[in-house]
């Protein structure tokens, strides 16, 4: 397995762990209503999204400096943002549809959702990047 591929598996695994932790924290700590009032809740969530971002930086930047990343790896890495872009667009579309359906009658969406949408997009984006790299290797091994 190429060093980059190994790191993409790590990125996917850790990204999934962050995503699950993100959802669990929201469920266990009272949902979006208590997010506004509970500072401890906000700090935990902040730690999660900053952690996901830092993990991505370590896996795909710092740790790659010590291993061989050749032109084929770079080509696969260069194609991964296509998957990332699609995942971000679908996540944003899901949020827009859901928020519109829930709050259409009131005409007001709580501002706290801006923060939640941003964090979820960030985590999905890091996950999709790893997934995009793995799909790239899978396609390269099948079709060349």
């Amino acid at each position, binding site marked *: *397995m*190429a*060093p980059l*591929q190994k790191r993409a598996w790590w990125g996917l695994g850790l990204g999934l762990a962050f995503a699950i932790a993100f959802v669990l924290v929201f469920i266990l700590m009272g949902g979006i209503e208590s997010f506004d009032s509970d500072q401890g809740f906000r700090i935990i969530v902040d730690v999660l999204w900053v952690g996901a971002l830092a993990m991505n930086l370590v896996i795909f930047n710092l740790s790659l400096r010590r291993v*061989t*990343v*050749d*032109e*084929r*790896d770079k080509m696969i890495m260069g194609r991964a943002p296509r998957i990332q872009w699609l995942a971000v667009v679908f996540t944003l579309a899901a949020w827009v549809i859901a928020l519109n359906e829930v709050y259409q009658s009131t005409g007001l969406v709580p501002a706290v959702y801006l923060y939640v949408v941003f964090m979820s997009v960030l985590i999905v984006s890091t996950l999709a990047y790893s997934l995009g790299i793995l799909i790239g290797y899978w396609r*390269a*091994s099948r*079709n*060349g």
Partner: protein
Amino acid sequence: MARINNQIRRLRFDHGEMTQEELAHRAGCTRQTIIALEQGKYLPSIELAFKIARAFGVALEEVFQYEA
């Protein structure tokens, strides 16, 4: 479609059964790229093609052949 064949596998064995890892190290790429090249699943850049030829100490045309 134009095809580019290569003799990497044969040349490795002709050069004292050079391992894929060793060739990858000499050419500055990963072993997975050498595997993909040998299986005809990846076309290298001109630069990598030259590096591979240099690793064997042969001309580029001895490693890669173009078939229209």
